[in-house]
């Protein structure tokens, strides 16, 4: 036996392969590390273990010891210590590793167990894969192909259960497909802390349902759809829309708050169909909010800007940039950047402000966090603006200082990066006193009043990075092409920079990052391509004194407030 390298590691043997794993690891996870698949349904690494599906049955054994002397009993044939194999199979999910544990996953007994469980799971399953949304990402389908017998001996009537129960506003349940693994029940209870699901009736007639008078309507309800190993729980929005194997997957980030949940955007031919969470154990585990999944609807929503306009008239972007440059050249400029812009955009916005000698502000989106995956800061990237030096203080909800400068006449032109200045506390009169250059995705009163409007892209249509509440820089990638008529944010900002005669930069990520690496010391060693999919933690000490809005949430604890000095 290989001695474990560290005292906290335990050596186990899986199908003849020795591996040292941390104490408390179960057999499924240990087997995964040696590349052995132990099929399972009910087990989920982020939920409690119930052991009800019985798919992960494996053979276990311990090295034989002489009962009297406790000396190892050797096998004369192999020369190794004999293994006492248990006559009963054990479930991998609830079997924790112990020193010397031996596991076999390929024996006839294990094969027979898996074939038996697969057959049982399928006898009352409707086998309606051709019309099932889960097809293509269905554990039942995959494991039936991988571990089932491939034929059925069942000639009786299948059980009949409700086919389309609306568990809540976003989740539809097909009870006949349900294999009663209870993942969804455990998720609601343990993660969402909204215990609304349960089984009624018993035996094979057991049926998943909501408690009387309750609905599955918490903001995390769609996670039950993600973890459902079969097609029982489906997203009411995505149901019957598209086959998953046609969809392209693009890594992205949830922009609804500074948590920065990692996501996957599923798209086809320029259309986004759904957004699902992507596992990041340091940020969002395998979860995300329902509200974050609906954000892709903004791509095609009412009010999307798709025309470059100068004084209300459609115009080419070069002309718009020139007009803007004319306004900016007069001086008295203020820049209202955005906590929703990417790090790259904030960097270029900062360069623009610097070139113009203009003051720069952000608008805060402080609100209520839910303690889980939505923080109290509705801006996904305030920390990016701090890191790139666009601003040095936390934003406030109202632009009172800017308002005062407008009133005094010292600010006569405002560049707004998607922010509505009225919503940020300016009055109609103040807005009317300034010329606005607006870069944004959607219309609002500021855009309507702007002299120059350059439509830009949503997070789904471009690539970039955000810095979340942990000061973790995370990247997102372009899932779909931008709407016709919209300009890439970096290109628009670069055009403005060159129009005002400042040193510009080629509007591609690599070039912008080359500049960032040169100008921003804390990002000096980075490039977009080098940032791992799960992000990189930045040094947050320069900003540790700032009173950030976030409270505790999953995997995040705010820095302790400075203790008052003893006096």
């Amino acid at each position, binding site marked *: 036996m290989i001695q474990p390298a560290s005292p906290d590691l335990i050596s186990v043997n899986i199908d003849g392969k020795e591996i040292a794993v941390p104490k408390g690891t179960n057999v499924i996870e240990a087997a995964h590390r040696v590349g052995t698949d132990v099929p399972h349904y009910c087990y989920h690494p982020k939920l409690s*273990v*119930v*052991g*009800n*599906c*019985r*798919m992960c*049955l494996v053979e276990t054994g311990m090295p034989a010891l002489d009962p009297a002397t406790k000396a190892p009993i050797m096998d004369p044939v192999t020369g190794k210590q004999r293994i006492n194999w248990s*006559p*009963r*199979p054990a*479930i991998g999910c*609830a079997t924790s590793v112990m020193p010397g544990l031996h596991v076999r996953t390929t024996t006839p007994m294990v094969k*027979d*167990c898996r*074939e*038996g*469980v697969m*057959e*049982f*799971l399928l*006898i*009352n399953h409707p086998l309606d894969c051709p019309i099932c949304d889960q097809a293509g990402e269905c554990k039942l389908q995959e494991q039936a192909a991988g571990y089932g017998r491939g034929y059925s*001996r*069942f000639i*009786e*009537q299948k*059980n009949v259960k409700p086919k389309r129960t609306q568990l809540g506003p976003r989740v539809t349940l097909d009870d006949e497909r349900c*294999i*009663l693994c209870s993942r969804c029940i455990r998720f609601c209870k343990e993660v969402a802390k909204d215990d609304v699901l*349960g*089984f009624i*009736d*018993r*035996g*094979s*007639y*057991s049926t998943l349902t909501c408690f009387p008078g309750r609905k599955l309507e918490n903001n995390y309800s769609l996670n039950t759809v993600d973890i459902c190993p079969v097609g029982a729980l489906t997203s009411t929005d995505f149901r019957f829309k598209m086959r998953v194997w046609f969809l392209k997957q693009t890594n992205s980030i949830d922009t609804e708050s500074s948590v920065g949940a990692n996501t996957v955007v599923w798209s086809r031919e320029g259309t986004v169909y759904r957004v699902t969470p992507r596992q990041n154990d340091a940020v969002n585990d395998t979860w995300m909010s329902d509200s974050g999944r609906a954000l892709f609807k903004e791509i095609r929503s009412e009010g999307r800007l798709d025309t470059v306009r100068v004084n209300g008239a459609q115009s080419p972007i070069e002309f718009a940039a020139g007009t803007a440059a004319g306004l900016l050249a007069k001086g008295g400029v203020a820049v209202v950047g955005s906590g929703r812009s990417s790090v790259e955009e904030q960097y270029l916005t900062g360069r623009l402000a610097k070139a113009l000698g203009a003051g720069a502000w952000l608008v805060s989106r402080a609100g209520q966090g839910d303690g889980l995956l939505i923080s109290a800061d509705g801006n996904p990237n305030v920390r990016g603006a701090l890191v790139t030096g666009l601003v040095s203080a936390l934003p406030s909800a109202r632009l009172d200082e800017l308002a005062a400068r407008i009133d005094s006449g010292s600010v006569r032109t405002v560049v707004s990066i998607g922010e509505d200045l009225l919503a940020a506390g300016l009055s109609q009169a103040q807005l009317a006193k300034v010329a606005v250059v607006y870069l944004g995705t959607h219309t609002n009163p500021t855009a309507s009043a702007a002299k120059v409007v350059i439509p830009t892209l949503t997070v789904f249509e471009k690539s970039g990075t955000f810095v979340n509440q942990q000061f973790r820089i995370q990247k997102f990638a372009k899932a779909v092409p931008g709407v016709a008529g919209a300009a890439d944010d970096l290109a628009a900002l670069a055009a403005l920079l060159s129009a005002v005669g400042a040193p510009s930069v080629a509007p591609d990520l690599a070039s912008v990052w080359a500049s960032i690496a040169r100008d921003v010391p804390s990002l000096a060693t980075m490039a977009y391509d080098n940032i791992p999919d799960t992000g990189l933690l930045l040094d947050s000490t320069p900003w540790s004194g700032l009173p950030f809005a976030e409270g505790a949430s999953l995997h995040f604890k705010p820095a302790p407030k400075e203790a008052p000095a003893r006096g």
Partner: protein
Amino acid sequence: MAAPEQFRLIFRHIDEPGYSNDLACYVRNGGYEVLKKAVLRKPEELIDEVKKSGLRGRGGAGFSCGFKWTLVDRKSGKPIYLVVNADESEPGTFKDRYIVHRDPHQLIEGIMITCFANKVERAYIYIRGEFPEGARILEKAIAEARAANFAGPNILGTGYGCEIYVHRGAGAYICGEETGLIESLEGKRPYPRIKPPYFPAVLGLYQCPTIVNNVETLCHVKHIVERGGDAYSKIGTPNNTGTRIFCVSGHVQRPGYYEFEVGKLTMGQLLNDVCGGPLAGRKFKAVIPGGSSAKVLKFGERYKGKRKVGAEMVDYDWGVEDIPMDFDSMAMIGSMGGSGGVIVMDDSVNMVEALANINAFYSHESCGQCTPCREGSLWMKKITSRMVHGDARAEDGALLKSVADQIAGRTICAFGEACAWPTQSFVTKFGDEFKAYPQAKKQPRPDGVPDLI
């Protein structure tokens, strides 16, 4: 050889004319004297008596009671609970009901001694939902015992207190499984827990160490403490001590409950001498020895092997009639003593139809938590009811056996075995009858055999 006399220990007063289930009658007959003496002894001594007695659990598994008590985690600092399993639901078993109905104070005395011995301050009697009368009787008996200071705070002036609560089930067989029972008692669906880690002795009721004992087992505790563990262990046979109540039902002249020393009586003596043999003109065909989940025994079968008598191994060659009615012999021949429910079937019974009945029960009672039992039990029921009421196929027997083989040993609790063993044993032992059933169905039903409904 004639059958020995009944040895009525637990059922001593059952059927006794004039014996009622109130406290006065119990005390008149020497009741609570054992408790009075027990509370003056050290708890550890009482546990030792039970260990010495060799008492094995009477609920079905026959697990050593004293050993179960030693497994209890006494160092955790958490309270220890006693849960009395009165969820007597195994078809063919009706012993606990008589104890509860006719002699509830015997149970309460056993509970109080057990609680005192294990430093338990709260005991729950989980009684099956179908026993409303039993629950009322227990409530009344507990109130009487409390009023007389045999239960409740400061028992008999010792400073030790223990409350007993009655909890009624809602009609589910699975609540007889100890961890399912605990879940139910906690107010949840009675899904049995996975073991490890949820052994009741460590993580039982409310995640505290818990002792779960059957009603009859706890009554034995009283008699063990009364007689002393060593004296009690002389009743019965080695490793199968004490007495056993047999609940005989089915095709015998005198069905009913009979209490004998464990192992001193054979199946043949029980059925022929005690119960008066088969009904007129019939012959015994099969018997289920320990509640409907035990494997069936076929008359005419021979059971051969070696067994330990004293220190020696001796050959045995038994027919069904020769099998001693004890835990070890029943296990040796491939069945189990179980709950003591002896179900007798004579030659009027078609085994396919009998199995259809058993399968209907188990498919209805499967809790539905884990896959093999949930799906397998209903599938077996669908097969047997199709055989009986629809188209039977010659290959159905083999299919049934194969389905049952996919259940046993692969489930969270012992229900998997309970629902698989009848099918496995019926098909193995009466396979010809399953093969011939398609033809047998077409024949007119034998005289005296009820129509199928």
